[in-house]
């Protein structure tokens, strides 16, 4: 497949933006400069970037607790996100939401929330809105493998299939629901098979291969725009960090029981390294070009962090500013 160089560079830059942004939180979390619970997206970048690149800015995305990547990939401002994670008044949620409530309605990032599976039905509703208005927008629901244990997941699949709603169910299977391996949560059958039984078009995708994600995403978006009903996509991926924060074990909860060999195996499948290899081997970019992007992004991350740290904190007097009842 031949891709325009611009697109490939955009995919790469966005993955690097997410990675460097996430990694920039490690030190401030450990030093307690950041308190809000951060569920870092390092390792899963190809999923958000590949799929969101197949969307337009008027399409909708709902995220979950681990949505820094979804927010950035959908076009949210890094400064606004950084300021929210520092719980500042200049944050995207005015310091009322923190890391788990990221929103950018102007670019279709309609929100994220940490009640597991809680936003799946919301994405179905956004797709219902699109279907009533016939405005051809597509809604994407990002959720993890843990969410398929919730009843609302099944209700949402059924209703979306029944009404042929333009929604993409994007299951990021990182093999763990917090501390719990997926094999302890359900019998050993692929998750995407669940959606098949609702009459939904399904696919399983290597979530660490950004081009595969992008390609599958484009097909899914096209199918939704043609009123062919929902698509269920299972992305096999892995988080490089703890469930919450940089490392559950360093931080004292000792809940990360993932085998070292497993972690090593997945680190070798780093989606950014894999894409770098593709870009250099196919001569889309050279080592200097990659480094140039990283330097630029690092400067952007540092600027965003300074913006956040220098932003005012919400005033005590404004505790109830957004209360109406």
């Amino acid at each position, binding site marked *: 497949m031949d891709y325009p160089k611009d697109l490939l560079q955009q995919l790469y830059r966005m993955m690097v933006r997410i990675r460097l942004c996430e990694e920039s939180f490690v030190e401030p979390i450990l030093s307690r400069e950041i308190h809000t619970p951060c569920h870092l997206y390092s390792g899963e970048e190809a999923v958000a970037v590949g799929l969101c690149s197949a969307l337009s800015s008027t399409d909708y995305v709902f995220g979950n607790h681990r949505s820094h990547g979804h927010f950035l990939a959908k076009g949210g401002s890094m400064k606004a996100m950084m300021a929210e994670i520092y719980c500042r008044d200049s944050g995207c949620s005015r310091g009322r939401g923190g890391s788990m409530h990221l929103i950018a309605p102007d670019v279709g990032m309609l929100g994220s929330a940490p009640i597991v599976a809680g936003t799946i039905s919301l994405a179905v509703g956004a797709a219902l809105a699109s279907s009533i208005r016939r405005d051809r927008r597509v809604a994407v629901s990002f959720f993890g493998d843990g969410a398929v244990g919730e009843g609302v997941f099944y*209700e949402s699949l059924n*209703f979306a299939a029944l009404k042929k709603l333009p929604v993409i169910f994007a299951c990021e299977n990182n093999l763990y629901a917090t501390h719990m391996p997926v094999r302890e949560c359900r019998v050993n059958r692929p998750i995407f098979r669940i959606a098949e039984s609702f009459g939904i078009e399904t696919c399983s995708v290597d979530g660490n291969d950004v081009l595969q994600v992008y390609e599958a995403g484009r097909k899914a978006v096209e199918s939704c725009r043609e009123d062919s009903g929902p698509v269920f996509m299972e992305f096999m991926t892995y988080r490089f960090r703890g469930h919450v924060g940089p490392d559950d074990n360093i931080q004292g909860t000792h809940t990360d029981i993932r085998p070292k060999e497993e972690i090593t195996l997945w680190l070798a499948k780093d989606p950014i390294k894999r894409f770098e290899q593709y870009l250099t081997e196919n001569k889309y970019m050279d080592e200097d070009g990659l480094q140039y992007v990283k330097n630029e992004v690092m400067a952007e991350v540092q600027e965003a962090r300074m913006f956040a740290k220098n932003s005012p904190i919400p005033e005590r007097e404004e505790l109830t500013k957004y209360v109406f009842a």
Partner: protein
Amino acid sequence: MSLPRKLQYSLAINEALHQMMEKDEDVFLIGQGVKSPWYVGNTANDLLDRFGEARVVDTPVSENGITGAAVGAAIAGMKPVVIHPRMDFMFFAMDPIINEAANWFYMNGGRTSVPVVFWGIINRCGEQAAQHSQAIHGMFAHVPGLKVVMPATAYDAKGLMIAAIQDPNPVVFVDERMLYGLEEPVPKEMYSVEIGKGLIRREGKDATVVAVSLMVHEAVKAADILAAEGVEVEVIDLRTVKPLDRELILNSVKKTGRLVIADVGWQSFGISGEIAALVAERALDALKAPVVRVALPDCPAPASINLEKAYYPTAEDIVLAVGKLL
């Protein structure tokens, strides 16, 4: 001059839906049984024929998913009305109602409001027992980010439904099946009843009865009975549970010095306790006697009609309650 047009309480809701769906293409009705009078009475009459299946969406039995879909559609800019033909079914939908809709505006720093109406019908009596009779308005009123309205009259049923749909934030609209047959004057034109404003249904100087929904009618009956004995009772119809019309209640209590609260929900930890606390905090000096509450006993709804009679308070209980204060 011709007599004012009369309309059933349920058809007043129906008229509100017709007028709002006609006026605003973003309004739609969704929920279990919108095609079936067995579920929703005549409140959805002719909506399907007029507005089609895209905007009158009958659904499978999936309260959580469907309510969440309504919330998501509202976040995307629509104005959904999601119906729960029995309030009891709303427990399945507490997550989208409370965790998502109620919190959404605040937790996102006011970036997106959620203009959704959660419509729940109370189905008391009829030997329907514990899971088909509950009134859980007090639970919703407890949550920051939800408005709760409870029309007692046909006029308010129409006006509050219109106000609820027009409100930019989530509103829980709680009606009462027992009132569906009530025929009262209802203007044909579109109007709204302000959310957050109660009304004095009957003026009096000896005691205040603050009532809600069906209990407003019982309170008025009680006031009639007491009037024959020379006791003048002031009846307040809350109309909106939250935001509570505090000034209306306080002014009345300051005038009468006596307070009875008549609720359709359970007594403990509900709205009657909240109103009593309000008066204790801000008008204690005005009270000439303790506050008395007339509400459901702390007991699940029974089936047997004989037990139902013991369970649901009536005008007689309000008469007795006022009698205690004098």
